[in-house]
Each structure stands twice: as structure tokens, then as C-alpha cells.
């Protein structure tokens, strides 16, 4: 299967999002791939509010099974969440569990005006009632397939399929 | 009952025998060695092929916990442990409850112990009333009741004037005094050797000087009073050197070491193993090595089990709060053999330390297979071994730092007064 070009998808995603933005809108990228995409979007959209990043490990629902991830990154939310429109940015939308964790975490910083979701790829397979407002690409993948975003040493983003 | 023990390897250190010899027992005594005595016809023949036949073992310290601590052990349980370990005579220290400080208590103990299947019991009477270190006991009366020596178990006499008088009084009657060298202040609150391990584990320490200072006091008083003194459970290299020097200076002093101190050191406390909480404390490896050499050379006269059965409740508490002591009657032979093997000693020399040499300290006619002697005999398989476990130990106390280990030597038969009291036919 030919995978779409990730850099192109970022540009397309930014263009789709542009009409829906408010001057106070803030982006929060989810570690790790979501942060890369959010950085692209933040630059392309010329947002003034600093980019937020989030490691949702503390809020994951599989902690009891898998324990704590060894390389945790601190969440950095450099703006007031209270009453602000927030867009969560992730690379691939799959079961929706990461997004649930991310939304829980955002509420621990305050009550946002609204939360939207922007992703590069919606690959289907949802286990929670979560839907992206913007997805640059949609595709149906089997359970065993795992779509990942990677960043090369020169900073170029590419999508790669990993068979589990 | 006439018993013929044939095909065995007989070791009788008292008589310098270490050779294949048959043993003949009649009327509770040794009737002959080697050749069949005239007119002897055996009721029972024991085939001791591959086994060692030696005098019944003598343990210089075994707590039977009666009277007063029957929840820890009883005569029945501990005597079963003794004969299973080949021990046919034992001295019991006076730290019962109440302590052995009255003739009536000693008589009662002797009476209770008078059973054909029970090892011979030799009580060590209390040197001071209640072991409190204040008033002397009626030593002469206690001696008549059956005490072979006088001591304080693990409780030192604090007042040196009382100590001197007690030694003078014992010397008057030529009673031996058995004392442990423990300064009452230097080791106060201590539960482990004051060294690297105690420092690492944060356990209050007992310095070496707690033993040497008390020993110096005892040696001076022994010289001045002329008392026959036996130092029980020495723990350090420095103490051993002092005893050797005191002896060279003409002081009548003997000493013993426990099987625990012969094999273990402070590091065996591991992660707070309460079974390694002992009095005196396990000291450094170099101390243990000095004790092992001292026992081999004879500067330490005997090794004993220092048997102290402790109930689980008193051990399953933090290390410092745990009741000190370890069960040992069944380990006296195996751990003596283990030491002998590791030190490459002839078996006879090792067995002397738990037979004739120990008998000498006790001042009893035992620990030998001389013709005419009481037929207390231990027959063991030197190539066999026992696994030390809660299940295999007959003692009511399951507390020993050797739990889980395989130790050499398996007792096959124990005879007491020529009467079979323990038999374990399976190798």
C-alpha cells in the first residue's frame, strides 16, 4: 500500500483548519508524533499562543496492565486553559483512548471553551465515541497493522506501516 | 540386652582408636572392643558397614526450656532432638524461669529428665540468685542436687565485687564456674557485632571490647581466687588470644565455641535474618577464622550447640526485637563434621571436641568407649547428609541460620546406657 506523504498532509491539514480558528485558539500536541505535527501546524498557521505539549502516560487507562512508561516527558501547557478554545493535535487517530486521556488531562488545567481534534490520519478502529474535526486523510486499516509517524535526522516526517 | 556392633569404623579419641573394630555392649556398658568377649552372645547385631561408631556426643550447652518456657520446648521434644543428633549427655544452662537457683528446681529437672530415652542431663546452677548478680546461690546444696558447675547463662554479673565473692565461694568447694565474657555496659542495647554490617544495617553494635574487657576482669579474678573457670561461647579472635596468654600465665581456664560462631560471621545476618541474632553476636570473618583454627589447635577446648529453641512469634519480629538464639542439638555433629572437612582435620580430632574433651570440662565419666564405660554410643554415616528444614528438625525450635542447608553426617543409631534410643535405618 502506498502511504501518503506526511509533509503534504500537514500542509493540507493546516489549510482545512484555518477557517475554524479563533484568535485565542491554542494547540496541544500529544507526545511524540502529535508534537511534531503540532509544530508544523503552529508555524503554518502563524499562531501567537505558544504551543502546548502533553504526555498522557499519567492518564492512560492501561497503566494497571503495563505500568509506567520509562521515558516520561513533562506536560507543558504555557497558556491558561480556562475559557480557551483548544485543539488537540495527534498524528494517527485509532482507538481514541489516547484522546480520552488527553481530554482528562486538559481538564486538570482548567475548563476550556471547547476542544477540537486535528489528526494527520484517521485509520478507523475506534473504541470510544471520538471523532476528529479535521483529518487530512482517512483510511481503513486492519487491527494487526500499525501506522506510525517518524521523523528523520533532517526533520522530515514520514508515515510508516509496522505490522504487529 | 547384648548388642554386637559389627563392621563399623570405631573412633574413640580418648583412647586414640581410629580403626575398623567391632563393639560389644552388655548390661549397659562397653563389654569389649575388637575381639568377642568371653561368653558374649548377642541379642542384637547391628551392621555398621560404612558407618562410624563413636562415643555418644556431649553438648556443653542445650536449653531444654523447662521450667518456665514450655511454649518454646519441652523435655520430650528436645530429648528427641538430642538423641536424633547423637547427643547422649548435655549441660543445661540456668536461664530457665525461674532460673536454676534452688536445689528443689534442680532436683525437679533431674527427676523429669530421668527417663530411659532421655540423654543424661547435667544442670549448670545459677551463680547468683535469680541470675540477678546480687546474692550468691547455695552452691554446695545445688551441687548436691546435681549441678556440675555454676554460671550466669547470658546475664553478666554487673557488680565486680559480687563476682569476685562468687568466684571465691565456688573456689572454696572447687566448683567450676562457667561464664560468658560480656561487659554489661559496652554492649548495652547492642544486637550485632559493631562493624561494617551493623553500620550498614543500622543495628546497634556490640564492640569487641565488650568481650575482651569482661574477659580481662574474669582472668584477673580467676588468678586471684584460684577458681576453675570455663569461658563459654567465645566470639572473637582477641578473646582467644587473651585466653591463650592467660593459660600460658598459669591460669586454669578452658573455653568453648558454638557451632554457629564456628561457621558464620556478621555477613550472615543478610537482610536482617532474625535467626542470626545470637548472643554473643556473630563477629567478623577473621574472628570466625581464628575460632576455627583455635578449635583445631585445641586452644578452644570444645564446641557446643548452644541450643536455644525459640518460638516463631519471638523470631518473627524486627531483628533487634527478636529473641536471640538458635536451635542446634541436631546440628552439633553435622556442623562439627563440616568444620573438620573444611579444615582437613582427622575425624578423630574433630570428634574429641564433642566427646572426651567436652566430658573433661563437664567433669563426667563419659565420652569414651573404654571397656567398662557406660555404653553411650553414636553411630553415624559420615557420607550421609541431612537437610536442615522445619520438617526434619525434631526440636520444637525451628530457628536456625542453617535452615535450608544440606549438612554432612547422618546419625543412624544412638545408644544410651546400652539401650537403643534412636534408630534411623534408611541411609
Amino acid at each position, binding site marked *: 500500500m502506498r502511504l501518503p506523504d506526511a509533509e503534504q498532509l500537514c500542509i493540507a491539514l493546516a489549510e482545512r483548519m484555518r477557517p475554524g480558528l479563533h484568535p485565542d485558539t491554542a494547540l496541544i500536541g500529544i507526545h511524540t508524533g502529535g508534537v511534531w505535527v503540532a509544530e508544523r501546524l503552529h508555524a503554518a498557521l502563524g499562531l501567537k499562543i505558544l504551543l502546548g505539549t502533553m504526555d498522557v502516560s499519567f492518564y492512560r487507562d492501561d497503566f494497571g496492565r503495563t*505500568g*509506567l512508561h*520509562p521515558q516520561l516527558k*513533562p506536560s507543558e501547557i504555557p497558556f491558561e486553559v480556562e475559557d480557551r478554545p483548544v485543539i488537540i493535535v495527534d498524528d494517527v487517530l485509532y482507538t481514541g483512548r489516547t484522546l480520552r486521556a488527553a481530554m482528562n488531562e486538559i481538564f486538570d488545567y482548567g475548563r476550556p471553551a471547547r476542544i477540537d481534534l486535528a489528526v494527520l490520519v484517521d485509520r478507523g478502529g475506534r473504541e470510544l465515541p471520538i471523532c476528529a474535526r479535521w483529518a487530512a486523510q482517512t483510511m481503513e486499516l486492519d487491527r494487526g497493522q500499525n501506522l506510525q509517524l517518524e521523523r528523520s535526522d533532517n526533520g522530515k516526517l514520514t508515515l510508516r506501516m509496522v505490522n504487529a | 540386652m547384648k548388642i554386637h556392633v559389627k563392621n563399623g569404623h570405631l573412633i574413640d579419641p580418648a583412647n586414640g582408636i581410629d580403626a575398623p573394630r567391632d563393639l560389644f555392649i552388655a548390661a549397659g556398658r562397653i563389654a569389649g572392643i575388637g575381639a568377642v568377649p568371653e561368653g558374649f552372645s548377642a541379642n542384637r547385631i547391628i551392621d555398621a558397614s560404612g558407618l562410624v561408631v563413636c562415643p555418644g556426643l556431649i553438648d556443653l550447652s542445650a536449653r531444654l526450656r523447662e521450667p518456665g518456657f514450655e511454649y518454646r520446648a519441652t523435655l520430650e521434644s528436645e530429648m528427641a532432638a538430642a538423641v536424633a543428633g547423637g547427643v547422649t549427655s548435655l549441660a543445661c544452662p540456668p536461664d530457665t524461669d525461674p532460673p536454676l537457683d534452688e536445689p528443689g528446681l534442680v532436683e525437679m529437672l533431674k527427676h523429669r529428665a530421668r527417663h530411659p530415652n532421655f540423654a543424661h542431663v547435667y544442670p549448670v546452677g545459677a551463680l547468683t540468685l535469680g541470675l540477678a548478680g546480687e546474692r550468691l546461690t547455695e552452691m554446695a546444696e545445688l551441687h548436691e542436687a546435681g549441678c556440675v558447675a555454676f554460671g550466669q547463662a547470658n546475664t553478666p554479673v554487673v557488680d565486680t565485687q559480687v563476682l569476685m565473692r562468687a568466684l571465691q565461694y565456688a573456689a572454696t568447694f572447687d566448683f567450676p564456674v562457667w561464664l560468658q565474657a560480656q561487659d554489661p555496659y559496652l554492649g548495652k542495647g547492642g544486637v550485632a557485632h559493631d562493624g561494617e554490617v551493623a553500620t550498614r544495617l*543500622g*543495628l546497634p553494635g556490640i564492640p569487641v571490647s565488650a568481650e575482651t574487657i569482661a574477659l580481662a576482669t574474669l582472668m584477673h579474678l580467676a588468678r586471684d581466687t584460684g577458681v576453675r573457670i570455663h569461658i563459654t561461647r567465645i566470639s572473637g579472635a582477641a578473646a582467644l588470644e587473651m585466653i591463650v596468654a592467660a593459660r600460658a600465665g598459669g591460669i586454669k581456664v578452658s573455653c568453648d565455641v558454638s557451632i554457629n560462631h564456628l561457621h558464620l560471621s556478621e555477613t550472615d545476618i543478610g*537482610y536482617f535474618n532474625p535467626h542470626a541474632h545470637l548472643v554473643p553476636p556473630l563477629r567478623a570473618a577473621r574472628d570466625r577464622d581464628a575460632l576455627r583454627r583455635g578449635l583445631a589447635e585445641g586452644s578452644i577446648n570444645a564446641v557446643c550447640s548452644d541450643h536455644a529453641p525459640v518460638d516463631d512469634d519471638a523470631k518473627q519480629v*524486627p531483628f533487634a526485637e527478636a529473641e536471640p538464639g538458635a536451635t542446634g542439638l541436631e546440628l552439633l555433629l553435622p556442623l562439627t563434621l563440616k568444620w573438620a572437612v573444611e579444615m582437613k582435620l582427622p575425624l578423630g580430632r574433630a570428634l574429641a571436641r564433642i566427646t572426651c574433651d567436652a566430658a573433661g570440662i563437664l567433669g563426667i565419666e563419659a565420652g569414651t568407649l573404654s571397656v567398662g564405660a557406660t555404653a553411650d554410643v553414636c553411630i553415624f554415616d559420615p557420607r550421609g547428609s541431612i537437610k536442615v528444614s522445619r520438617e526434619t528438625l525434631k526440636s520444637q525450635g525451628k530457628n536456625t541460620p542453617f535452615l535450608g542447608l544440606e549438612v554432612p553426617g547422618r546419625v543412624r543409631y544412638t545408644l544410651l546406657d546400652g539401650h537403643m534410643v534412636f534408630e534411623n535405618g534408611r541411609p
Partner: protein
Amino acid sequence: MRNPQLNKNGELQHLLTIDGLPREIITAVLDTAAPFTEVAEREVKKLPLLRGKSVFNLFFESSTRTRTTFEIAAKRLSADVINLNISTSSTSKGETLLDTVDNLSAMQADMFVVRHASSGAPFLISQHLDAMRQEHIHVINAGDGRHAHPTQGLLDMYTIRHYKKDFTKLTVAIVGDVLHSRVARSQINALTTLGVPEVRVIGPKTLLPADVEKLGVRVFHDMRAGLKDVDVVMMLRLQNERMQGALLPSSEEFFKYYGLTPDKLERARPDAIVMHPGPMNRGVEIDSAVADGPHAVILPQVTFGIAVRMAVMAMLAGN
């Protein structure tokens, strides 16, 4: 002998002591603690990691301060916290330490935070739990006798790393009553494991344990010599009861020779940090001018302590 704090996979099962803990695990705790520090600045200072878990603070020796820090850490992780102050008098009424543990295990405890006056008590508890096939219950040593106070040691390492970055170039001095100090033992173990090239202990001979140099430290009795060019000064608390008896003549003399004063601190490097596990005895082991001065990082220690304890609890609960 297997390290009783690690599970079969070599992961942390209990935190009992820093002695023998692999360097990677110590580093992992410090790394994990970093993101937890940020939680304190949020509107909702709570993470759901230990939601539905019961943490029992089992204090056989009272310590409001230590208990509170564990309580805050557990509550920020959304655990249910049950505080039990079990005085020794109630255990002497017949219920043994292990009876208490069995009872609480039957109440579906998930974690025991244990403070006990006897060295080794948390080992006894963890060994008992493992023997009773209650391996899902984790034990954290919150200070046992003179033996160990591993979370204090870890939070001290977090503090040092925060200010000094690299352990392998430091000279650290630990000053005061090392003999009775579980904190000092845990600090020494952590510092040596993390590769600090020179750890010094400073104190009178009555307050230093036997063979302390075998723990990998240099011994100084002269505080001015011992503080020369050090990067970190770790003061220990001197318990008031040590003043009675024969360990020390008076608190005044102790302060004069072993109290941290500005002039003694001048011997250290200009950027040296001063630490104290608290509560401080001002005028006994530390001068107020130092405790409140620019070198002191005593309050950050407290803040970091919460994050480090959260990290330890989260790691244990996940293993």
C-alpha cells in the same frame, strides 16, 4: 541472595533501602519524578494513576511530617490514603506487627508505607507478604530505625541533580549524627551508587558508626577541613535525646564545632548548596543565617520530595 526489593524481572517491587539498588533504578526514579514536579502547578493537582488503590500509612513511630508528605503524594495520585499511627503500646497488647499486616492485607491494601523504630522492620513485612503470596502489595520504607530512609535519599539526589547536574564531579559532605541517622545511610548509598567521587562524613567519634569508611566515605572530625571545597553540604538532624547521656557534652559545644555557620560554610565552594532533611534545630546543627541564606535549598527539597514519592509510588504500582 536475591535483592528482596526487586521482582523476578529485576523491577522495583518494594522500596526498602538504597543499598544494593542498581544505578539504573535510582536514575529511573529521578527521571520519572521530573514530570511529577509540574503537577503541583496545575489547577487540579491530581493524577489518576493510583485511582482505586488503597495506600496504608503504617506508622509505628510517629512522624507527622513524613506521613504528610507521603499522604500528599498518594492523594495527588488519586489513591485512597488510610493513616494508622500504631504506637508500640497497642502492639504490645498481643497483636504482633505481622498480625497487623495480615489484617490490613485482608482489607485489600495495595501499598504499605512503613515507618518503624526498629531497623529492618519493612524487610520483615515485605518478606512476610511475599511468603503469604501477597506479592501485589508493595512496601515503601518511610524510615526504619537507624537503617534507611530511601525516599529521603532519593529526593536528596533529585535536589542535587537539579542544582549540580553531574554527580561524577562532586564532593559531598554529610555532617552530624551519622551513627543514629537512617537518612545518612541512604544518602551515602545513593551518592556512591551514582558515582560521586568523594563523599565525606563529618562528626565527633561518638556520632560516627564503626567502620563507616567501609561504606565508601572519607571521615573528618574537623568540620573546617571536611568542608573544604565541597559542592554539597548535607546536614543531619541531631535528636534532642542525644544530648542526654554520654554522646555529647552540650548542644552549645556541638554547635561550636559541628554546627553549620556562615564562616564554616565559607570553606565550601562559592556555589555550594546546603541541604537538611528537616525538621531543623536552629542553633544546634545549623545557624539561621545559613538555613535562610542563599546556599540553602531546604525548601526545594520538600517540594521535590512530593514528586519523588509520587514517582516511587507510581513506579511500584505499575510493576
